[in-house]
């Protein structure tokens, strides 16, 4: 036992300086808590050990929501964007998703500076080796014997916790990107009887730019007209790079299959469960054997680096096999691998052990966020980090936690899925996970969540007022559009016919025309004399809310129903075993999850509508 010394007292301590840790530490300190953030290496704060990009489907929604609540990721991404694209244009506003290629080192530098300069936040390079409860506080010990005391602590250990890297027959203890792993902390967490398990993820190789023949690859450009993630970003986003697309072929497949026995995944060395949506290339080749080719994206890691990321090519095959199969691909014939692909296995918690506040049920004041909670992805991590940080701070200040509903946000959906449904593999956000996706759009994240961000003190007055103004303008315009009638005329009918929709013979309501799928709000500008000049973002919202009004109303009804169920709270000390009429399976599941409301209980698998009825009756009789 090494000699320990008192290193200070804090309100909130955050273990980890990745995407979850950074948001947690910033949120807690911005709310006014004395906060300390620990990272194994100060050179890797806010690091992107996998793809050099932020956003994408549903993830873009998360970033917008995070930003509306006062998180940092959106602004950091905007400040370091290399290329920006709005995905899914044409597939409908519910699935529009912003995605940006990011200068990885610049992003990390931005985040490092953000935490360093944040008032009330101390940043410390140290490995936390144990954590224990003393009286009402949590004590965190560093490897060097420093003892930090905090009212609340957030575990955001990512793949560092018990990290082990696998490349072919070789494996060793390691964090991501060649960092030290956190080897001791897991033992300490096991002493707290936390239900830990092993998950696995992987990353492809980084290769040298000048070893690629880009003339043989397809080019993918950024959008002509770009949008920022953050409502607070005022500078336009510029595209500085292009990405490229290439494909695997039969030779690639052959090399992979010939060497499959050397993959730790197939030889059975790895016990961790990998994500279903992010399979390694050997997984893809085996599971989707009939697919002729697989797509690969070549993405630059930054402006001042030669390293290129090969999206879609993650692997844990031996290094020489990796080099061989990469070189089978057109354009990569002479490719030089700078960092090899690898799989990494790590410890995480069964998230059903968490409350919706992200506090661990059995450990008051101890919170989990990010990969530790079984999720995957920078955006998922950041979103949970923000919520864990907010709630740790609020607990330290004696306030009730902020719990977001799945009816109001993707962040709420993410957390509800994790804590009530649990996950069997690393959880990734998808638009199809939200049943309310026509309402929870990325274009209205500000309206949905800024009031909450403002209320908890993370959104400043000016930003909040701007949102209110935007919303008022939108509503006024919708009202106006609904009251405007256009008279039929040659020019109007010409437009309608050219767009492939029926001409009109009588006066027609402007809103009714916008509801036609073929017609846009902008198309009708020449006929709408009294139209005010509005921001593009406002115009977009006006169009979406008119065009999809019927669908939105339908979903709003479902939301109301869910909200009513959520408002029916279940007492913490409820004894499910004593409730006659509940089926045994329902009793078991409810006892495990212990949902805080009827709404959440209805999400638990194995609980039937009749069980919910029984619960309602029981609660009313108390």
């Amino acid at each position, binding site marked *: 036992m090494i000699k320990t010394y008192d290193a200070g007292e804090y309100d909130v301590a955050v273990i980890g300086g990745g995407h979850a840790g950074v948001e947690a530490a910033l949120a807690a300190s911005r709310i006014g808590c004395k906060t300390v953030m620990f990272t194994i290496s100060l050179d890797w704060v806010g690091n992107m050990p*996998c793809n050099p990009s932020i956003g994408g*489907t549903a993830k873009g929604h998360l970033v917008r929501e995070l930003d509306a609540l006062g998180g940092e990721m959106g602004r950091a991404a905007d400040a370091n964007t290399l290329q920006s694209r709005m995905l*899914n244009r*044409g*597939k*409908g*506003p*519910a*699935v529009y*998703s912003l995605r940006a290629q990011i200068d990885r080192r610049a992003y990390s530098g931005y985040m490092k500076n953000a935490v360093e300069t944040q008032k009330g936040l101390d940043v410390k390079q140290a490995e936390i080796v144990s954590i224990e409860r003393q009286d009402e506080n949590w004590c965190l010990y560093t490897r060097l014997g420093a003892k930090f005391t905090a009212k609340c602590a957030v575990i955001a250990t990512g793949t560092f916790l018990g990290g082990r890297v696998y490349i072919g027959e070789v494996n060793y203890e390691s964090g991501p990107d060649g960092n030290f792993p956190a080897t001791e902390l897991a033992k300490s967490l096991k002493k707290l009887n936390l239900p830990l398990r092993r998950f696995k993820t992987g990353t492809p190789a980084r290769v040298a730019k000048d070893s690629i023949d880009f003339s043989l690859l397809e080019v993918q450009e950024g959008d002509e007209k770009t949008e920022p993630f953050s409502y607070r970003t005022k500078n336009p986003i510029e595209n500085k790079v292009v990405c490229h697309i290439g494909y695997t072929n039969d030779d690639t497949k052959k090399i992979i299959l010939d060497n499959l026995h050397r993959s730790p995944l197939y030889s059975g060395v790895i016990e961790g469960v990998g994500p*279903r*949506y*992010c*399979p390694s290339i050997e997984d*893809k080749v085996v*599971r*989707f054997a009939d*697919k002729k080719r*697989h*797509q690969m*994206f070549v993405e630059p890691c930054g402006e001042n680096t030669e390293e290129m990321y090969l*999206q*879609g090519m*993650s692997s844990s095959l031996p290094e020489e096999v990796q080099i061989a199969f990469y070189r089978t691909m057109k354009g990569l014939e002479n490719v030089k691998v700078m960092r090899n692909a690898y799989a990494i296995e790590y410890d995480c918690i069964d998230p059903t052990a968490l409350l919706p506040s992200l506090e661990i049920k059995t450990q008051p004041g101890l919170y989990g966020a990010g990969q530790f909670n079984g999720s995957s992805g920078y955006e998922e991590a950041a979103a949970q980090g923000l919520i864990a940080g907010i709630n740790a701070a609020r607990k330290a200040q004696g306030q009730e936690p902020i719990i977001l509903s799945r009816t109001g946000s993707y962040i709420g959906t993410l957390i509800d899925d994790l804590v009530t*449904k649990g996950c069997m593999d690393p959880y990734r956000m*998808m*638009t*199809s996970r939200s*049943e309310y*996706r*026509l309402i929870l759009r990325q274009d209205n994240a500000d309206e949905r969540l800024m009031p909450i961000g403002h209320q908890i003190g993370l959104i400043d007055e000016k930003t909040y007022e701007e949102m209110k103004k935007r919303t008022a303008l939108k509503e006024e315009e919708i009202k106006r559009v609904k009251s405007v009638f256009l008279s039929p005329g040659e020019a109007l009918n010409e437009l309608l016919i050219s767009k492939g929709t029926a001409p009109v013979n009588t006066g027609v309501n402007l809103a009714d025309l916008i509801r036609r*799928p*073929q017609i846009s709000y902008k198309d009708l500008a020449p006929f709408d004399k009294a139209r005010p000049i509005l921001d593009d973002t406002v115009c977009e919202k006006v169009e979406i809310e008119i*065009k*999809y009004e019927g*669908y939105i109303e*339908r*979903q709003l009804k479902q939301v109301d*129903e869910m909200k*009513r*169920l959520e408002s029916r709270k279940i007492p913490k000390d409820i004894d499910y075993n004593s*409730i*006659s*009429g*509940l*089926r045994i399976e329902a009793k078991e599941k409810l006892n495990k999850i212990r949902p805080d409301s*009827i709404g959440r209980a209805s*999400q638990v*698998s194995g609980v*039937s*509508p*009749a069980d*919910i*009825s*029984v619960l*309602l*009756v*029981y609660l*009313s*009789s108390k």
Partner: protein
Amino acid sequence: MTENTVAAISTPKGEGAISVIRISGEDAIKIADKCFMPLGSKKLSDLSGYSAAYGKAVKGDGARIDEAVALVFRAPKSYTGEDVVEISVHGGAVSARECLKAVFEAGALPAGAGEFTKRAFLNGKIDLSEAESVMEIIGAKNEAALSLAECAREGKIGRDIEKITERLLYTAASLAAYSDFPDEDIEGLDEESFTSMLSECENKLVRLLSTFESGQAVLAGVPTAIVGKPNVGKSTLMNMLSREERSIVTEHAGTTRDIVETQVNVGTVTLILSDTAGIHDTDNEVEHIGVDRAVKKLKTSSLVLALFDMSRPLDAEDKKVIDLCKGKKCIAVLNKSDLPLKADVSAFRDFNTVTVSAKNSEGMDELSAKIEEICGAGSLTGSDTVLINERQYSCALRAQKAISEAKEALISGITLDAVTVLIDDAVNALSELSGKRASESVIDEVFKNFCIGK
């Protein structure tokens, strides 16, 4: 949960003077207005609590179902403490079921087991001490419903619904993969095959929905009339059918009419059997009433067992019975096979026939087999399965409506995100029908079928 408006038939199954359809919840009166057309000018929504209106129960298209009386109760002064409308129609399963169906189509959801009592309790209308027993009831029904769902899953209905669900799920997953992983080379569905897939699913559901009524008959019993002129052996047949199957559930003599009803099980089929007065010309006023009733019974029954004495030539009264039976689901029971045949068999060429000797109990097996063949579940709509209860019906209807809307949306050219939400609704309704939870199925399907990843 309790904010929905629900409805159910509140009188016991089987024959009674009236059947009552109870509707309870916020929209009860609004919904009832769509299914009840008053004789006077006042709609139910114009009435105060504790009022009654006379009129007719109607379908959504205005078609008459039956004459009816509607009672309006306004919250909190009702059994459940909510707005309640009770529509009384004539006894017998058909009118009540038709009326309930109309009520569902107007927006009510099927009341769960013990639902009205539960609501009454939640709204403080019944004593707290009854809470436990209410829960026991719901709980017990819950177990029963589950085992029923279990059976259904084993059976055809489960498989049929599963097939439709699978197709919808696969489509939902294709669209989800297409939307959620735009960088992968996943092709979107082409509109034509998408629309035809939706049509196919919708058609299957429409067919399934049409089986509901027949399914109800199997479960609740087929109203069956035994008819014939006097002394052809109707009562003997009635007694024999009853005796043969020792599974008489209820037996009660009609108190105000000369029709005796018995519920008997013939193989898998339950018959609600009515013995009627012999059909013949008479000047006797009392007899005349009996004959009129018999004719009416014949007309309203779903199945007619027409009895003929084959030991004598057919007379005008027999021919009248034959005429009355035309166009009905009917079995001509040719009785008295123990005596020499004197009647002309060719008169029955348009009928299903069974030759029996009621006296000697001969031919009963054949008769049972024929009844099962005509009314059994297997016969209903060929290879189709049957929706057995209102809950299933309402789920299937929800699914069908959602698919139909999805199809419309798709054809109108609206973006796929709106279409997928409707397909989700359909999948959820069908999953509810088969007692499964849909929430993760689409996601699982995506990962199973599509090669996706960064």
